[in-house]
């Protein structure tokens, strides 16, 4: 029949015109996407909820702020919440929902290296591939394996390990006790640090504690008999506070006859309170910055906003990644906003190419990903517990 065919021709022409009109980068203001979704993925319940819960709140805040500033050319971004419970199997199932929905343009997360490594092949081989920006996955394989979908705003294990080792050696370490908490993050990191220490001929003793341990008397006796002058505890959970309290009870006072270097999750000032001051003088390195310790108005404004939204004490349970999660969300959202809109749709391929090429403005300053998906110039931040705060000392590298 003639009539439907004419309508079809007009429709095709209209689409063609619209495609031509909306083809420029920078997002033409007249082109509003129909629907934009991103997903926040991480262990929001379960054994790693202590790092996931705060990150989720940060991402929710990021989406809210982004939408308040206009969203993607007027379209509000919708946030899907995928609680992978630190399980790659659950992650794969949840990601399937996003993979088949072309309006899902990216994931902030996954947070755990193990989950990333366990689900990335599905994301990479989806058609089209679904990009992600992780705020905390630190395993080197995440960006070393050539996946175009992989991005992260935090530093890597092979940056943090040697940097931590160098820091301790520079401070005069003679014998180091290296401890990890048997998690995918801490074991890999402790391995890197121990290798770097051994390369410089520093004697080490290696011990593991199970997550959730509260009695460290056995290990502390071992540390004493080893004669360590530094304790390195790679951990992102809450074991640090009871550990240093018990160090003190065993007559090992930080800053006097022992030194302590912790890692992500241990630059948390609530540890000072929870260890009743035993943490004073301890150092901690972080693969991301803690907004409360970084100078700069954007970070400070974010901290104020976070506290306003979630309560004055909320920083105590925000975990170590509440800053980097916001940063990762900002990067992803800006990449989406910079991508062209065709027919009310944004393509993931464009998002991926913008993630690769653009510079993003975040609470920690400018962020640009290198060709592997790591952040250029990402450093390790060293904090020290002084009084009742964690103070940023400097940035180091290995």
């Amino acid at each position, binding site marked *: 029949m003639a009539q439907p065919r004419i309508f079809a021709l007009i429709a095709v022409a209209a689409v063609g015109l619209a495609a031509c009109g909306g083809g420029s980068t920078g997002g033409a203001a007249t082109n509003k996407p129909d629907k934009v979704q991103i997903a926040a993925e991480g262990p929001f319940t379960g054994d790693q909820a202590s790092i996931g819960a705060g990150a989720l709140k940060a991402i929710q805040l990021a989406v809210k702020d982004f939408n308040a500033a206009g969203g993607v050319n007027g379209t509000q971004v919708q946030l899907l*919440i995928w609680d992978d419970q630190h399980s790659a199997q659950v992650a794969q199932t949840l990601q399937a929902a996003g993979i*088949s*929905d072309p309006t899902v343009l990216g994931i902030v997360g996954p947070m755990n290296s193990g989950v990333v490594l366990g689900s990335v092949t599905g994301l990479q081989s989806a058609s089209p591939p679904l990009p992600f920006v992780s705020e905390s996955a630190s395993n080197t394989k995440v960006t070393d394996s050539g996946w175009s979908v992989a991005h992260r705003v935090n530093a890597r294990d092979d940056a943090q390990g040697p940097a931590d080792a160098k820091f301790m050696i520079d401070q005069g370490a003679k014998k180091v006790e290296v401890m990890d908490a048997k998690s995918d993050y801490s074991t890999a990191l402790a391995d890197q640090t121990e290798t770097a220490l051994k390369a410089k001929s520093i004697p080490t003793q290696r011990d593991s504690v199970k997550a959730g341990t509260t009695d460290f008397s056995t290990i502390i006796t071992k540390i004493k008999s080893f004669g360590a002058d530094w304790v390195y505890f790679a951990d992102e959970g809450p074991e640090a506070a009871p550990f240093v309290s018990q160090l003190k009870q065993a007559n090992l006072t930080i800053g006097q006859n022992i030194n302590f270097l912790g890692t992500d999750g241990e630059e948390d000032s609530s540890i000072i309170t929870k260890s009743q001051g035993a943490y004073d003088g301890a150092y901690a390195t972080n693969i991301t910055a803690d907004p409360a310790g970084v100078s700069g108005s954007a970070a400070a404004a974010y901290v104020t906003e976070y506290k306003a939204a979630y309560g004055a004490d909320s920083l105590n349970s925000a975990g170590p990644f509440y800053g980097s999660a916001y940063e990762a969300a900002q990067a992803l959202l800006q990449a989406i906003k910079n991508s062209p809109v065709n027919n009310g749709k944004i393509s993931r391929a464009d998002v991926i190419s913008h993630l690769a090429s653009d510079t993003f403005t975040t609470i920690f300053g400018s962020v640009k990903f290198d060709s592997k998906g790591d952040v250029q110039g990402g450093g390790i931040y060293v904090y020290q517990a002084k009084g009742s705060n964690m103070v940023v000392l400097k940035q180091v590298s290995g």
Partner: protein
Amino acid sequence: MSAQPAPTHPIQTTHALKRVWESGPAGWNQALTRPAVLVPFFVLAAVVPLVLQYVEDNSSWIGAQYWTLILANCAMYACLAVALNLVVGYAGLLNLGFIAFFGIGSYAYALVASDQLHQHYPLWAALPVVVAVTLAFALLVGVPALRLRGDYLAIVTLGFGLIMRDLILDLDRPPVLAGHQFGPDGLNLTGGTNGIHQVDPFKLPTSLPLLGPVPHFRMYYWIFIGFLALTVYCMLRWRNSRTGRAWVAIRDDELAARAMGVNTFKYRLLAFAMSAVIAGIVGMIDAAFIFNAFPGNFDVQQTVMVFIMVILGGLGSIPGAILGAILFTVPPFLLQQFVFYKYLIISIVLIATMVFRPEGLLGTVSIRPRKNLGGTLELLTAESTIEASELPAVTDAEAADLEAASGAIVDDPEWKQ
């Protein structure tokens, strides 16, 4: 198996259904495990992903892959629930380390089909390895432990599960005991906290005649459903065999069974080992499905989850186990906003079920409190519900005879009920 002729008239159908309903859980289970019900169920289950795909292709709905994955997870848990039902419901053994066998199966397969040990066995070679390894562990735990009382068995199996989990986490480097290293440097058996990645999937055809290309997730959904069907079939054959009768006898009254010459140890071991091997094979399929084997596969929380599925669905009931699996797999994915309360809700459901209806929805094994003392478990049967009013009444003439014969006792009104 019911010998009722197939109802032809609609009123006959409703009569038959009404009779099934009234016959209680035992009757429901009989009805639900007839081939006339099971075969259509599995055929329907197999067809679902094709229907989903069709709907997705012809409408604006997107969710075929997501839902197929959810259902695949559901089918996996259904297999585990049926296996646990075998050991807990049929044989009455509280295996709290059950999920460890699932994990052992997944790691056994991952070790022979990935780069971890540089072995890449195809399915037909890997399967016997998985079965052998799982069976070995089951015997290792079962032979000594099954001689113990039920509560002790629970603790030994729990301890076994915890030990396995620790070993899996710790064996990514040679163990160092008392300062001595056992094993060469660089020995990495289990991948430690990260697990084993890039596990080979089964080498299966990627497209089938008539159905066209089959994506990975759909193929594995079919594999899980197929394995579930196979397991259910085996359970039903067993139930009606000598082994099944031995299990029922042991469960009802072990002392009596032994007095009758039933080798209780052998049958309990058989149930324990079979359920472990089934769990191991499910683990193998899972490892191929998600291309990974994780230490999380050994978490005690998972055992508790499968327990709850079996308890709520009903101990001793195969359809109950499947129903329980559906009830506890699908809603958590749907109700993501309640995910913080997940374990809270689950624990309340478990407590409520045990207190108010311990036989669950479709259970045929009563673990209810007994009114009279002695004996172990009772089987609820359709014939046991006899109303007092159905008993023949004592006529006055009979009462007078009795009174004459036995004196004043009969004056007690209770005799006349």
